[in-house]
């Protein structure tokens, strides 16, 4: 059984605030209630361990991306005092890779590309998906039919195959990679927003707007859009985790960037994973853990926000 929220509508009864104009059916609700609810939700969020851990993890990687020299003294392509393939030691905390670079430093510098690509790709996907979803959900009809088929077609192509096709056609520059990931995410977002828009369109406030003779553009952008923003935010955070993962996968497959000396987690994993058989596990496992930690961190934050909003 789901939790029961007895607070809808939020109408606390305050005997001192019975406005005479409204005493007939009571309802002297307080504007403060909404703030109160928000405050309680915030308190719950800040107290939840998942949120704190998530923020610490993501915060660390954001710091690495913005200001890597704060966290390490080496450069990403600098050779350190230890020989190549040295295990974790005091000179190189996480060991050195096959050519003698510091794995820790590579990981710190490697946060930047992934933290540029993933949020940008997600943002573009959200804008496109929301637009398409709203248009399809409100207008329905043949526009919806055609776009739905296209979306199903895109969804039926395996992600990796799609990425390979795009990258081989348009090159592996960063903008292409960002758009590739965005395109991969648009169908799922569109579907979510479309079904929300359909539900909203069936509500009477939309009927009422039609009765006033409002235009479709007004109804979609001013009436419906503000009511699906909550969903858009949830989609945004969920997709962000996936975007991190997808970018790392593309990097691993060598589908991004041409300059291998630039630190990148996915590339580093793919450069070094063959050495695992020779027991040199650190240059590939540590970047992989970095990827995992970022995905987990983002998801922890997403889940805690979702939970707080639903409580």
């Amino acid at each position, binding site marked *: 059984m789901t939790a029961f929220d007895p607070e809808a509508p939020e*109408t606390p009864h305050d005997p001192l605030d019975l406005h005479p104009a*409204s*005493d*007939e*059916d009571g*309802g002297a609700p307080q504007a403060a209630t909404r703030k109160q609810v928000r405050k309680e939700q915030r308190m*719950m969020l800040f107290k939840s361990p998942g949120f704190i851990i998530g923020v610490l993890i993501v915060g660390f990687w954001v710091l690495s991306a913005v200001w890597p020299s704060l966290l390490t003294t080496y450069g990403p392509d600098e050779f350190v005092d230890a020989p190549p393939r040295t295990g974790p030691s005091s000179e190189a905390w996480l060991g050195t890779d096959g050519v003698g670079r510091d794995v820790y430093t590579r990981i710190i510098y490697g946060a930047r590309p992934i933290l540029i690509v993933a949020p940008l790709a997600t943002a573009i996907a959200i804008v496109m998906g929301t637009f398409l979803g709203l248009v399809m959900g409100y207008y329905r009809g043949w526009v919806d039919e055609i776009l739905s088929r296209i979306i199903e077609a895109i969804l039926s192509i395996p992600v990796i195959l799609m990425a390979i096709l795009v990258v081989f056609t348009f090159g592996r520059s960063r903008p292409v990679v960002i758009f590739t990931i965005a395109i991969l995410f648009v169908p799922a977002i569109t579907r979510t927003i479309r079904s929300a828009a359909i539900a909203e369109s069936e509500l009477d*406030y939309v009927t009422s707007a*039609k009765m006033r003779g409002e235009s479709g553009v007004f109804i979609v952008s001013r009436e419906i859009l503000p*009511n699906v923003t909550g969903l858009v935010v949830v989609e945004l955070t969920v997709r962000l985790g996936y975007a991190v993962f997808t970018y790392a996968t593309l990097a691993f497959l060598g589908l991004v960037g041409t300059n291998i000396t630039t630190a990148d987690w996915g590339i580093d994993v793919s450069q070094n994973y063959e050495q695992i058989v020779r027991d040199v596990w650190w240059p590939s496992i540590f970047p992989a853990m970095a990827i995992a930690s970022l995905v987990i961190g983002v998801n922890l934050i997403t889940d805690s926000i979702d939970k707080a909003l639903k409580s």
Partner: protein
Amino acid sequence: MTTTEITDDGIVSDPDTAALAIEDLELSYVVRGTPRAVLRGVTFEVRPGEAYGLVGESGCGKSTTAYAALRYLPSNGQIDGGRVTSSGQELTSMSAKELREFRARQASMVFQDPVQAVNPVLKIGRQVAEAFEVMGQSKSEAKKSALAALHRVRIASPESVMDRYPYQLSGGMLQRVVIAMALACDPKLLVLDEPTTGLDATVEAEVLDLVRDLRSELNSAILLIAHNLGVIRTMCDRVGVMYAGRVVEEGTVEEVFDNPSHPYTVGLLNSIPRQGLRKTDRELFAIPGNLPQIGEPLPTCVYVDRCPIANDTCRTEVPPIVDRSEGHWTRCHFPDRLDEIPEPEEVSEVVAVGSEEVVGVHGVSKTFRQRGHDIPALVSVDLGFAEGETLGLVGESGSGKSTLAKTMLGVYEADEGGEITLRGRPMAGKATKRVEESIRSLQMVFQNPDSALNRAWTVRRILTRSITRLTGMKGDEADKRAVEVAEAMRLSPRHLDMRPRQLSGGLKQRVAIARAFAGDPNVVVCDEPTSALDVSVQAAILNLLASLQRDDRTSYLFISHDISVVRYLADRIAVMYVGRIMELGSTEQIFEGPNHPYTEALLSAVPSVDGQAENRIPLTGEIPSPANPPSGCVFHTRCHRFIEGLCEVTEPEMHELSPGHTIKCHLTVEQLSQPVEITEKDRMADVAEPLE
């Protein structure tokens, strides 16, 4: 919270034999980390074989009590104190296994929405049989038992129903199936939580009849939760009135409803239009203030803040339980001062209905096209609205009431041939093509304000947008008008900057009415405007609509399934069936009769607070689909006055019974005045037609 409850020995006589005894039950929900009290010492018992009703406004804890009776609690619910016992077994201390056993063998629950209570992918027969298999029957035995159970709930062809999926059955039929499943274990206790709320009045009457009949066959006690006082009156032996998580008055239904002894009960009863009350007689009584919120600390007397006769004693001392008569008690300091409660205002001025037609609907039909088939949803409807007149529109769901409303308002475009006129001049079909004047003159108030108001907008924006669209006023001018309109609806200026979710149901509906009145309309279509509201709030809204009509001479098309509400507000009443007007007449003519057989059945279905309706005419089966209307008279398939060889062949013309009173029926006044006999067979529900 400390217990300040006085437990009187008289309330729970013997917890060892009672089918259900709830003693001093305290329960709270944990919301965002804080427990909030919902039940604050509920005490009552349901004796074996008895039907006990619980009434009260939404939020008073009725449903929570029902769930707690079987210890169904949501994940955030917790019992803080008190005991729940059933036939001597204490539920509050049962293990999960014992509880499962108890629910399987001794108690059953029927929920509000039958559609959610059944599994959509299993055939009815499978689901009902399952209930018997749980009891240890073999598959073949269970199948036989299932057939018998369906027969017992008055389903005429159980074999065919067994083979159907839930989506192929109507709501009323499904509720019968759910009841059949609930009765599988021959429970000692049957809990019904608003079992008829989602159903049409006619179907509601059928389901209630069924439960009443079954009571004599079974030996189960019934706990019935309903917000409809009429339902409780016709169904129960005793009733408890709940307020803010406590029972404030209890007694036999006759005692409590005819001789109420708590100010809250008096308020509830005065807020519904009873005994044929009309808007010209007096206003309805609206209980001022709000129910205390869940989790708030309570004053000594829970009702003190809304009580018209409260004094200092009420604020300082917990009211004692005062016995009124055998088994009838109230929790009030001054049950003898109840006649001091002020009477609702008499309506001083009566504004006569104008004679000129403001808005007219002439020969309007609406045909939808679906997969190449024509679906005539409206068939040549003629209606006229005089200035200041209320036209009530009644009929079952699916009869085309909302389609008519939406066609009038230009959401749907009427078919060629018919026209909707404003002072004699036809207006365009689609709202987008109508001139400002036409849009302004026709407005609508929807059933559910939660759906009708954009929840992302503030009240101010909702109102000013309509004002700008309807009158062309902009900026400060529109804003000034919004304040004026809000004031006329008795909304205060500070409500303007709130969003709908911060307002109570009644205030939301006021905003929706304010929006409709923003441009000084001629006709306002009210589509069940109070059915989502509590009775006390409904009273305030009906009062508001009546007073706006007196002041502005606005006409209403008032759609409602609640016949007593329609009777209160309407000057004329139209009865609709399968997209056609079957009867039209003044409110007096409709209620005095003679009526169209369909109207006759509708009127007899209403459960009344004033006692049992005599001789109910059953409307079994489902309303026919407009895609495939019956031949001849569309009502002949369900008519109790059906004449073979005539009704299924020729469609009757609309003809006049008396001046202003027209019906679409072959029968004469004399024939319609003859009483009909209802046989047991008429009361069996059957599925409409064999599967395609």
